[in-house]
């Protein structure tokens, strides 16, 4: 038995910092940001940061999703048409 959660043939398309990105459906926004090569947020002292713990603990993957800041992108599944921006 395989562990196929969602049909891998299905894709979802979202916008990351103005770029259109396609991912297998079920993918998280953190994965979209990594695939786009875009940081999730800029730190207090101005460093670019990307997802780190991958499990909702470290908050490094916070970004702006559909205008709402501080969303932990590793815990959010991509939905068609989502607008994601680096949190500055």
């Amino acid at each position, binding site marked *: *038995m*395989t*562990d*196929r*959660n*969602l049909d*891998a043939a299905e894709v979802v398309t979202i916008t990351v910092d103005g770029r259109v990105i396609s*991912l*297998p*459906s*079920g*993918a*998280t926004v*953190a*994965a*979209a940001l*990594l*695939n786009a090569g875009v*940081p999730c947020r800029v*730190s*207090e*002292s101005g*460093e*670019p*940061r*990307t*997802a*780190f*713990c*991958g*499990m*909702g*603990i*470290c*908050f*490094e993957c*916070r970004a702006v999703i559909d205008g*709402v800041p*501080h*969303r*932990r992108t*590793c*815990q*959010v*599944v*991509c939905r068609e048409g989502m607008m994601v921006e680096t949190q500055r």
Partner: protein
Amino acid sequence: MKRAFDIVVVGAGPAGLAGASAAARAGMRVAVIDENPHMGGQIWRAGVGTCHPNYAKVRAIASFKSSGAELYPGYQVVDSIDEGDLVTWIDVKRSLETFGFKRLIIATGARERFLPFPGWTLPGVFGAGGLQALVRTGYNITGKRVVIAGTGPLLLAVAAHLKQAGAQIVSINEQAPMSRLIKFGFALMGHPRKIFQGIGYCTQLAGSPYRTGTWAVEAEGNEKLTGIQLSDGRRTWTEPCDLMACGFHLVPNTELSALLGCRIIDGVVQVDENQQTSIESIYCAGEPTGIAGVDAALLQGEIAGLAASGMAQKAIRLHGRRSSEAEFGRAMSQAFALRPELFSLAKPDTITCRCEDVRFGQLNALAASQADWTYAKLQTRCGMGSCQGRVCGPALEAIFGWRNNSVRSPLFPIPVATMCSESPREKEISIPIP
């Protein structure tokens, strides 16, 4: 809105699923709350595409699905107002919901321990389990060169998975010396299934060097990782790579247990033979009671589920296997104990609190003047950012012996507007109007 259940289980990993299945089969009305969008916990995290079949997982999930227990994914416990209730935040709905329970089973699992080293905040450096989770949920690492460094059996499992996902594993670097791993190998004799699993990983990783007594001293690069500097204590060298996966074994997630007042000693929730905590209505199973892995979690979860349903007698047959798994956990902790060299890798300008960008030099100066965690927080804001010290806390406990004893609600940050308008604490929050 409040939902009422006989038993609420927090955590849909192995312990939580086993506990919920046992309780629901015993006739209880059971809810399982988990902050993640999918069940399985970190170890069995579901996601995109296919994984190798894992029979323990398939069996546990099938048993859970047919048990009648209800699953609430994406619900994160943030507070408890009255005895017998939990307040949860649902991020996708941007709102709070309360769950009432007669008995609670805490199965909150563990997180990775991280230690600061120069360059560990560079994009491209990930937690080992973290990188695995991100790949499972859509991060494409085909052709990427990955250096893996840290400690614990997780490193091998992660390496095997990343390779299967198309990455090129440059090297796997285990800080523990070979002598301790050989001792651990003997301790595994009573657990043949774990040996076969280990051999399986090694076969898959043929061609990638696995080194012992070796650790990462620095992640190199400017705005992006370009290589990892490694050391075996005699010499240092750099291996070029695109990504790094690091992790220093696991830390139990005990914040909810602490908030509810359960007795915790040395970072581990104290339970009796029925997995009951110091609070009669609260049980705890899996990693929060001591890191021992998935088999221990499944057994403890089932025992907790039966005991919480008034059927502790039925669980007695599982006690022997539980003890043997606990022994395995202790052997594992000894084998993968951290070497002191790891505590002095950070330089004065190395960021240690990633949320507030507090640098190691500031903290080291405070430690030299006998400061504790609370004082360091007040002076530097270390541990006061969004993660509430979940990353830097265990690191600084390992390095300076500082212990974070203050857990308070909300357990995870929620919007102030929600706190003011929806929280059952609404009446407590009074903002004086001048």
